[in-house]
Structures are given as C-alpha cells and as structure tokens.
C-alpha cells in the first residue's frame, strides 16, 4: 500500500470531535463534584481573566454559582449522547429501509418512499415539541424522537445507491452463480452503501446536536438540574448583558461540534468520491437533514 500524507481536512475535525467527546464524558468526573454544587455567594462570577473572578472556576459561574467549565462539559454528555445516538439510529433505520426499498422495489419501494415524503412534509420540530410534552423528555425518548427526525436522508441515499448497484452486471452474475438475495445484499450491495452512509451519519450528528439544543432551549429537552447545552443557554439568556459567559461556552461547544461533524462529513465525501460517482450523496445532501 502507498502511504498517503496525513489529510488534515479529515483528521483535524475527527481529532477535535474526539477531544470534545472525551472531555465531556471524562471531564466532570476529573473535576470533582464541587462543580455541580451551588454556591450562591459566587453567582455569575466572570471567567478567570476578568476582574472579580473566583478561584477554581476558570470559565466563570452561572446564576447559582456553579462552575461553567464543569457544567458545560456535563451538558455535552446529554447533547452528544442524543446527537450521536439519534444519528446512529437514523442511519441504521435508513440503511434497512433503503436496502428494502431499493432492492425489492415495487410495492415496498412505493410504500417506504411515500412514507418518507409524507414525513418530510410534517413540521418536525412542532411534532417533536408535542411528543415531548406528552411522553416526557428522558434521554432515550429524545434519542428515539430525533432518530425519527433523521431517517429520511439515509433512506433516500441508500435506496439510490442500491438501485444502481443491484442492476450491476456483477450482482446479476453472482445471482447467476446461485447467490440468494440475502447473500447478494450482504456481500455485494452493503459494502457499496456503507461509505455514503458514514458521510450522512456525520452530517446528521451535526444537525441533530443543533436540534437537541433547540428542544432544550425551548424547555423541552432533559429536565434541569441535568444540564445540556441547550438548557444552559436558555438559563443564561436573562443575564446575557451582564454575564455573557453563561451562554457563550455551551454555544461555542455546539458551534465547534457541528462544524467538526460537517467538516468530517465533507472530508469523508471527498475521500470516497471517485470518478465513477460511487458516492451519490452530493445531490441528496443538499436537501435538509431535518427541518
């Protein structure tokens, strides 16, 4: 194998994402439990480099005197669990439905794609709000809800590729050698749809982290005191003029995470987009991941 130069467009966003994930899941534990404790004497203390800062709370404190560093990292747990979990769920569902629609065709194809079209016509955020109001907002509920918000794109991408691959001569040739449908899908079709779906997964993570933030901001995400980036921002907005840092850190984390997820998706797409158009995602990805 020929060695390639390290592709920074791929590895930089991947590295930053890994740092974010590790920091959010390991960080609060390392910082100790004090960060989550309220300290009403230290309310809305600014970050360390401004006057009036409190020792041991380098990014300032929120309205209850809790350490912003520890809150922000802990808030990331919920946002990332929901974002990555729901994106994975959406891609898995999309893979299965796309394979069935593209491979079986006919009635299955029409049924699945009709549901997908109807699904996109619904205002997803409004439905999500209604659903959360009814069934509550635990992390599994949020993951399930956002999975439902993201399955259409991977389904469409998978179906498009499967339709092309299934009529390739080598698939027909393998069928001519006695292969069953399941064998053909596993051995010849699935390897062709996985790269595109990894790209879709990456973009979906970014989109769903934003949507989770929006739900939390509207008070329909996880319930306080459990922090998530969205509800920290929501809690901080009344103090935006006097204590910008409460909103700034979680907002910055959302921006960094989403940008890295999108950059990773773009880099993967570029990497796999060979001359033959093996990755037919470029047009499909222009449509929105979710409303």
């Amino acid at each position, binding site marked *: 194998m020929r060695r390639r130069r390290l592709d920074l467009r791929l590895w930089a966003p991947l590295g930053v994402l890994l740092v974010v994930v590790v920091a959010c899941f390991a960080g609060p534990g390392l910082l100790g439990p004090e960060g989550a404790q309220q300290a009403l004497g230290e309310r809305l203390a600014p970050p360390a480099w401004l006057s009036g800062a409190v020792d041991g709370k380098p990014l300032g404190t929120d309205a209850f005197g809790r350490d912003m560093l520890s809150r922000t990292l802990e808030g990331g747990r919920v946002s990332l669990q929901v974002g990555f979990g729901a994106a994975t769920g959406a891609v898995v569902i999309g893979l299965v439905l796309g394979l069935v629609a593209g491979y079986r065709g006919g009635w299955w194809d029409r049924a699945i794609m009709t549901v997908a079209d109807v699904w996109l016509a619904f205002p997803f955020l409004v439905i999500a709000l209604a659903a959360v109001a009814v069934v509550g907002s635990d992390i599994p509920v949020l993951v399930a809800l956002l999975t439902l918000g993201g399955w259409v794109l991977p389904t469409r991408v998978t179906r498009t590729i499967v339709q092309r691959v299934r009529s390739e001569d*080598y698939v027909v*040739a393998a*069928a*001519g*050698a*006695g292969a069953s449908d399941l064998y053909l899908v596993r051995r010849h079709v699935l390897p062709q749809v996985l790269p595109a779906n990894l790209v879709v997964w990456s973009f979906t993570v970014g989109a769903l982290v934003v949507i989770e933030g929006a739900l939390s901001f509207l008070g329909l995400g996880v319930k306080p005191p459990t922090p998530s980036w969205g509800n920290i921002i929501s809690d901080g907005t009344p103090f935006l003029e006097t204590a910008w840092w409460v909103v700034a850190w979680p907002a910055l984390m959302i921006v960094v995470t989403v940008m890295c997820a999108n950059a990773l998706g773009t880099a993967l797409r570029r990497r796999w987009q060979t001359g033959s158009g093996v990755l037919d995602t470029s047009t499909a990805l222009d449509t929105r991941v979710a409303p």
Partner: protein
Amino acid sequence: MTAALQIENLWIEAGPVDDPLVLVRGVDLSVEPGTVVGLVGESGSGKTVTCMSALGLAGAGVRITRGSVRAQGTELVGADEATMRRVRGGVVGTVFQDPLSALNPLQRIGDQVAEALVLHRGGRRRAHRERVVTLLARVGIPAPEQRARAYPHELSGGLRQRVAIAMALANDPAVLVADEPTTALDVTVQAQVLDVIRAATRDEGRAALIVTHDLGLVAEVADRVAVMYAGEIVEEGAVGSVFAAPQHPYTRGLLASRPLLAPGRRRLSAMAGRPPLPGAWPGGCAFAARCPDAQTACAEPPPVRRGDDGWSRCWYPPTDDPGRDPVEPQERAG
C-alpha cells in the same frame, strides 16, 4: 439423448399486466450435451431476454407467461427460489457480455471464483483455494496462484473474461450459457476465449448456448445455429447446412450482409428497412415487410417447415424455388 437445456414454446412479456409488451413469442430450442448452439439475431430480437428469463435473471417486470424451460430435467418456469439457486451456477453456468462489469471491482478474483464454490458446496472461501487455482489454470490464466490475488482492474479484458468463465464452470454445470461472451474483446483475444469455451463444451461433454450477433463466431464454435427475429426463432439447423443453404430469407439477408474479403464485391449489401419493435409486430410473417420475396400469403403466420436437420418458418423456402442461388459455402471463409 435428452437435451441438457430444453426450451419449449416460451413466451415472455414485460410491462403492465393489463397492457403487456410481448418480447418473445413461442421459442423452441434445445441444447444437447457436447454441442454448442449459437443463438443469433439483431438487437431487440429477444435473444438475451430468452436466456436471462430462462434462468430468472431478466430483472423486475419481465415475466414468462407460457412455456417450459428444463435444465437437466428440472423445470425452471415457476420453480421456487431454492430450486433456481441450485440450478444457477450448479446446473447452468452463465457468462456475461462485459467481463469488467461482471466482476466485483472490490474483490480479488480468487475470492470471486471461490464465491461460486461456496454458494454450492458450502464451507469457507479459503477451503476452496486449491480448486480455484485449478479452475483458473484450466481457463488458461498464467500464474494462477498469483493472479488469484489480483483485483479485476489489474487484468486485461481477455483474462477477466477467462475469470468469468472460470466462475461459470466452478461447479461443473451441465450447461454453459454465454451472452455475447466476446463482444467486448478485441479480435485476437476473442479467438482465445472461444477456444476456452469450446474446450469446456466439446471436450468435457457440456452443452453450451452462446448468444451473439457475430455470425463468424457461430461458424467457428457452434454446431447448431438458431436465428431469432422479432421474438421468434425463424430458422434452426446445423451450422453447416444453414450457412450453405439458408432456408429463411432473413438468414439469407444476414449472411449476405457480412463483410467479406472477397474480390469483386465492392459494396456491402444490406437489408432494407428495420426490424419491427416489440409491441409493433405484424400479424403474419414478421419479416414480410423487409422480405424481397414477400407475397400475399405472407400476411398469415408462416408454417414451420422441417428439413432433414432443422426447420424454418417461411411460406416460400428456396427448396420450392429451384431458380434461386443459395449463398455459396466458399464465401464463408471471411
């Protein structure tokens, strides 16, 4: 002797059930062990769809409405998936037109040949390595041990087609069906691939059905030839007698329009008109509109006339008309 592949009165159609497009109208064809049958015809005459439908590989929407296909006695029309899977590759091996696209570009060729073995004999791919190398050697691939680890793009077109033939022969099928196996290859390589196919049939007692539009290929490898026109077989017979004395005017036209390196011929003769499209086939003889000898009777379906060894579908075969010159057999040496 029973035929290895027996097609009887096969009707195939596509499109909506209430308004179908008839593609093949009552094809009869049988391939005996140890013989090569060439199925020739223009594009759209239904030759490929006949073979692919017989194996259930024609794709969605193409269906057999009547008739029977038997491979080594097993009826394939209406057979369940398990039977079809056992027959495909096991009883009937298939070779496709384009050797590059018939191989998965992401898999080593040895693995792909092994795949054909795994599908019928079970076990792991690695367990079949020895037989894979034997198969690759049998179809004339040099250094088969090394080549088994190559990817399709590393091989030439001819070698790729040999790999495809090795896959088709992996489970010693009784019948080899090849759809235009040499069309995508250049002429010198064509001859080598034909040698491989011939060795796999005559020498090993296998039956072969070769779909082609190349009459030179038929003359070279086939024992019998069936000529298809507008979804029907219009003439069938031993290659020697069909080429020497074609009974159907379409066969005569095909033979006359081959480019020949003979002195004195300046302009390539061509048949007037175009073949009718599926769905627009006339009621009587389908070739009547282009036939130089058409008469009023040709508006009715022509009778099947049996000769000593073969048959044709024409109202006025040349034997009724001794004034006509048959195509001289010497002209075949092209």
